[in-house]
């Protein structure tokens, strides 16, 4: 009886091990194709600036990233690229209250979000006579107290990009006036 149970358990374990294998490479459908939101997202994440001086826009972008506390990872002048990331606290009140309530009422410990890494890349490309296009993309990864990833997401909140481009315009002004 015990042997039977053990046998089933081991077989099940083996089946799961074979099923999960060493990682599967079947991408989610449409992972590399454009969709209905592509144009909308592009508009949200892009702004045109009335200057062809990509170097100045790059410097203003790098300065802005430092203003926002990002560590610069990579900068490529000829392709107009600057990337960076920052590690920040990801705890929030709602989850903490939920955690204490679960512990008090149910006696279970629910791990809550602990850290997040926010990544940003800015690409500046020429866009016709006397203009350039700046496109910024943000994403973040959140870990819980056990170091497990709980969320990986692409940030496409309209307010975030509006504020970002407002700050970039300001940074360009400061750069132009050498402040």
């Amino acid at each position, binding site marked *: 009886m015990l042997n039977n149970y053990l*046998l089933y358990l081991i077989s099940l374990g083996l089946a799961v091990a074979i099923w999960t294998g060493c990682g599967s490479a079947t991408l989610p459908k449409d992972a590399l194709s454009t969709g209905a939101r592509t144009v909308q997202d592009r508009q949200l994440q892009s702004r045109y600036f009335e200057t062809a001086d990509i170097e100045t826009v790059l410097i203003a972008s790098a300065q802005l990233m430092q203003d926002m506390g990002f560590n610069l990872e*990579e900068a490529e002048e000829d392709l107009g*690229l600057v990337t960076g990331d920052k590690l920040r606290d990801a705890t929030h009140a709602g989850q903490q209250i939920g955690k204490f309530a679960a512990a008090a009422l149910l006696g279970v410990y629910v791990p809550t979000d602990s850290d997040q890494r926010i990544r940003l890349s800015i690409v500046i490309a020429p866009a016709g006579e006397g203009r350039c296009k700046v496109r910024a*993309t943000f994403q973040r990864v959140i870990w819980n107290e056990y170091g497990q990833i709980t969320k990986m997401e692409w940030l496409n909140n309209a307010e975030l990009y509006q504020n970002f481009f407002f700050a970039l315009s300001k940074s360009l002004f400061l750069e132009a006036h050498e402040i």
Partner: protein
Amino acid sequence: MSLTRLNHFALWFVSGLIAFAIWTGCGSASAKVLETEHGQVELRSIQSRVYDTSDKIFLLHAIMATMQDLGFVIDDANDVIGTVSGTKMDRYAVEMTVSVRMRGESQYVVRANAEYNRAAVTDAQPYQDFFNALSKSLFLTAHELE
């Protein structure tokens, strides 16, 4: 053979199989480093397209714009070597590197390789999707690698 003996045999067999699976792991280190389960020629053909342009910077800009359209954050780019790398996070994570190399005087070969869930993506369809998006961005038709 009694039922108990049969169970014992099956138990040993399955345990042996697990031990073997653990021992072999996910393949030896050299097999993982040099993984060539797909033929090199077949893989290159799936992952590459030829574009009629001699403008490398234009091509690299289009690749970055396409990757951003697809939700990638660009991690790294180099115009001398002709590479762009990025990561997409959308509940899952995909990493992709795209390289360009000149072929003849007026063509570039664009090659993409993606990684998902700790394995190389070797299906043809995702690459086809990527090159369709890139072609739209470039207003150019992609040719299969010959």
